[in-house]
């Protein structure tokens, strides 16, 4: 896409970090009104696919900021408060997914899509592990509880969303990007 280095941080990253965050915040908040698919205590938040997509398309800084600020915003407008460890966890999801950005050449190519989804899932795992384990420390729950109560449902929900929606977003993006002159 652009041949700048993975960790560059300029106007572009600021703008897409902010846009990703605002979208992630809005879509998370919209989940309060739109009936979402759920199974047991796993809810599927489609907003997560947008976060992973922003990481994949624009790199790790954008992924981190979109996740961190986006989760904070989503919680804020829904009135939940400020749960810093979940915000950091969401940031890590985007950041890890963003590590693949430099390797993505064609958003339509199957190989690139598979790569993006794999990084996305690893990102979901890392981010949700971080959040769940900080809950262990702050709430004084044991490993099994953190795993069963926090990690597993969050991981499954977010990973499924990533697998299904990230490829759709990438293919749409390939079409949009083809129109651009930069």
């Amino acid at each position: 896409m652009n041949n700048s280095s993975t960790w560059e941080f300029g106007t572009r990253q600021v703008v897409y970090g902010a846009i990703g965050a605002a979208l992630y915040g809005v879509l998370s908040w919209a989940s309060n009104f739109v009936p979402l698919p759920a199974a047991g205590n796993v809810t599927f938040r489609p907003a997560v696919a947008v976060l992973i997509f922003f990481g994949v398309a624009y790199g790790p800084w954008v992924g981190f900021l979109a996740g961190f600020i986006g989760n904070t915003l989503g919680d804020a407008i829904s009135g939940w408060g400020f749960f810093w460890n979940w915000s950091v966890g969401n940031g890590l999801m985007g950041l890890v997914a963003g590590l693949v950005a430099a390797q993505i050449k064609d958003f339509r190519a199957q190989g690139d899509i598979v790569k993006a989804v794999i990084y996305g899932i690893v990102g979901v795992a890392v981010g949700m592990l971080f959040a769940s384990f900080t809950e262990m420390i702050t709430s004084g729950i044991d490993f099994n509880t953190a795993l069963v109560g926090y990690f597993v449902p969050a991981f499954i929900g977010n990973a499924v969303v990533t697998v299904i929606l990230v490829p759709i977003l990438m293919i749409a993006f390939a079409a949009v990007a083809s129109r651009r002159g930069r």
Partner: protein
Amino acid sequence: MLVTWKYRPRNTFIQRLDPRTRLLFFFCVIFGLTLPDIWDYRVILPLFAMSLTLYLLARIEWKDVKRVWLFIFVLVFMIVGLNALLSGRGGPASVTNTASPVVFEVLGIDVTIAKIWFALTQVVRMITMTLLAIPIPYTMDPNIYGTAFRKLGSSDKVSFTMDLAFRFLPTFARDFTITMDSQRARGYELEKVKGGIASRLRKLAPLIIPVVMQSTVTGEEVIDAMDLRAFGTNPRTWIKADDLRYKFADYIMLGLALILLVGGFVLRFGLGIGEFFIPDFFTNLFL
């Protein structure tokens, strides 16, 4: 659907504090409580009282937070219950001390006095922290976040990302509503989306794709607009930075925060206070 900020100007003690004070205070309490692993009810109860006082001082209307608290209570009781059911571990090792008398048995698990007291302590401890977390969006002006983070030491660019995200939030909420309307006008009915998880997720694409793709196009123009106004070329002036000033009350609160943070460590590791323990009056209830 319009995004409305939960923030409202209220002339309260809490809102007169510098936002930086409040963020620092928040983190000091959380880390002062959790890093030294404090589980002594004699330490937790005063902290709980303090959090509750600060929460009440914020004067947030109950109808605004009713739903949130309901959710928090369900979550706290589920997690605590699950934890107790699964082992009662996680906190201090003495909780699983088998010497504690068994009060009753559920699903083949011995519920001891220690476990019950631990669960109670855990609930109060979690709510102590939640009481500080919930008021933040209700009491902090969204227009000041970027400046506050800048003055807390984050870079110009990261701080501005925050401001820019706030700027776009209502725009995307409106775009999302328009997209929702235009797909409904094409017969799309969200309530009637059926099928398995995968196909139901896929059927959300008509709502998500237009908003996301439009935002990627918008971004290119925003980059131009910002470059053309010299963003990121010099160290920035933050025009609102002077609005943030520590006043007397801020210094008091920051001092208190520091005492709480350091105090947690001193109590635990210097004086050996703060470990989990079951007060005799509680044990006596069951004997």
